[in-house]
């Protein structure tokens, strides 16, 4: 029963960490738009924290390149379990128009295990919120997977 309460609390209180991994800032502005009075994601207990050690959901925008993949991995490693990763925008999904650039590795799934992909250039705030909701469902699924392994 205690586990169920924790699980409910997890879904009710997802704290986001947003990392701009070399994005053009289009997607970043849309991420921040979710916090404004128009969308007000704090209604659902979502807080944008600037600290990986406090975060549950990792929002990444932009492409990965040789330089920032270490930063991206470092931030991911600092987040305590359970955690989910949401890739936002075309660049984070596949590298977008920068795919062919000599220093670009591609989408962030080249470096991290991505749970939810949110397409768009830039992704709409509604789509981002939808992606976060899907990520919350992942929390439950991850729990079930742990059970099947155990």
């Amino acid at each position: 029963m205690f586990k169920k309460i924790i699980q409910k609390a997890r879904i009710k209180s997802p704290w986001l960490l947003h990392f701009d991994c070399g994005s053009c800032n289009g997607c970043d502005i849309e991420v921040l738009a979710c916090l404004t009075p128009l969308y007000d994601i704090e209604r659902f207990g979502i807080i944008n924290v600037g600290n990986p050690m406090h975060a549950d959901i990792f929002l990444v925008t932009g492409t990965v390149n040789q330089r920032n993949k270490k930063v991206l991995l470092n931030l991911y490693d600092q987040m305590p379990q359970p955690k989910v990763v949401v890739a936002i925008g075309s660049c984070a999904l596949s590298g977008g128009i920068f795919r062919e650039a000599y220093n670009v590795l591609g989408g962030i799934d080249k470096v991290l295990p991505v749970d939810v992909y949110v397409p768009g250039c830039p992704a709409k705030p509604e789509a981002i919120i939808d992606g976060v909701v899907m990520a919350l469902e992942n929390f439950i699924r991850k729990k079930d997977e742990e059970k099947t392994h155990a």
Partner: protein
Amino acid sequence: MINSLVMVIAGLAAGPALGGVISGLDRILTARLQARIGPPVWQPYFDVLKLFGKEKMVVNVWQAFCAYCYVAASSIALVLFFLQSDLLLILFVQAVGALFLVIGAFSSTSPFSQIGAHRELLQILSYEPLLVLVTVGIYLETGSFKIQAVYGGDAPLLLKLPFLFVVLGYALTIKLRKSPFDLSTCHHAHQELVKGLLTDFSGPFLALTEIGHWYEVVLLLGLCSLFWATSWGGMIIIVVITYLLEVLIDNVSARMNWRWMLGYVWSMGLALSMVNLVWLYAR
């Protein structure tokens, strides 16, 4: 004996029960002031429960030890308040808790944590003398440092100590981590250093610091209620008005630096308490 046992349990329960609801109401009010709807009242409980369910990550053992000591000291301070103990003892126990939080932040090498800890020390330096002066005022009026003596009085303290209540308001704003005194860590992105002091606390230990903070909030609001201790209605009204003013000040004030905080709080706080104390003494 049974009575004091009931009071101990009430004190231990009041922190999480009242503190969580107060912080939930605070978040709703703040959201409404910013033209948002805000989270449900129970949001702080969801946050804390979720944090307890997260993986334990500590920088070193001292950090975990300090988080436990902070909760222990702040809960003991609130229990002493419920037992109507000595005001000075309560303040010193509460100060021990505040210092353990600073030591916990100092035990990590993260620069954010270090800056936060330094700023928290400056905040403690700002509000501790004021809290002691408030208790001195209460002593001059009631003839005792015991809270029992305050409840025994026949006129509200606010009429005798109006300036000291304002001084307590300064200490309250710093302790509640409200703008413009939220230098070391704050609830919102009001500062360039949002979670300075708490940067390296994560998961269950962050939850412990949050619960410790609830105990402190309830203790300080309890100190406010002493200023109208002659009736239950008066106590509730004075606490509600004070807290609403705190939320308003939090949302209308800009961020400030520590020099301004120390200079302003000490000059205004010491001047106001001197005026009040001299008036009490000369009367």
